[in-house]
């Protein structure tokens, strides 16, 4: 792999900043969930980059990829729960605006 590490980390930083912007700006629950997914993908990209630039597979350099696999599973789980919350919020309050969902109890 000959892609410079700094390029990969810069892409990861840009995606992270994009996700932060989405989380702070948007009020729609689905858009916030999507922004969190962008942030998660930025983190996963970092794991993959450092996995290949650390000492070889025999020395444990593949561990970053293993963690990335586990993170992908976790992120998919998070989306499933998040969308279940979206459906519950929509049914109970008739809105997806997080500013209106100020009570944690149903």
């Amino acid at each position, binding site marked *: *792999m000959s892609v410079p590490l700094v390029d990969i980390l810069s*892409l990861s930083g840009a995606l992270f900043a994009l996700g932060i912007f989405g989380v702070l700006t948007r009020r729609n629950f*689905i858009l916030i969930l999507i922004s969190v997914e962008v942030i998660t993908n930025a983190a996963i990209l970092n794991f993959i980059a450092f996995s290949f630039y650390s000492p070889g597979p025999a020395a444990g350099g593949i561990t970053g990829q293993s963690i990335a696999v*586990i993170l*992908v*599973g976790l992120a998919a789980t998070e989306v499933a729960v998040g969308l279940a*919350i*979206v*459906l519950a919020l*929509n049914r109970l309050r008739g809105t997806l605006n997080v500013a209106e969902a100020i009570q944690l109890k149903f």
Partner: protein
Amino acid sequence: MNAETFTFIVLALGAVLSGALALLSREIVHTVIFIGGLFADLGAIYFVLSSPFLGLLQLAVYAGAVTILLMFAVMVIKRRIFARESTLGIQVPTLALAVIVGAVLVNVAMDVPNYGPAPSCPAADPYCVGALAQNLFLLNGAWLVLLGFIMLSALVGAVHLAREWRTPSVRRIRED
């Protein structure tokens, strides 16, 4: 600049553009389509970074399942809710904060020492898939089991959240 780096830069620009369009689009369906494009772009980037297994996982789980799940969630929610809560435009302080965070992260990335060319995988296992499987199932097996428990709990939690509510307090909220 070699072909790999050029491909990476093109895909990276596509990913950032897709992400920006997804967050700035006023139509929620367009947002989901653009976010699917971002996930597919990242999957292609993983292939360029010699991680074909993760690339396939990204395409199957994120570009496939998660995007379709988001699209179904959009379909079952009334459109008037999205029209009422459409995007608010660009808020300058938040945009400035995001730009500062991005600049700091890119600056940190510039300071990361250059590790030189990445170590190559053995000839018999050119994409390190065997090494990944050994690492995942032997060394990190406990984390996989933990992930399984978390996913099971999430399944139960999601079913509990999405079921039809019939308790008196919920009925009172719905009548309000």
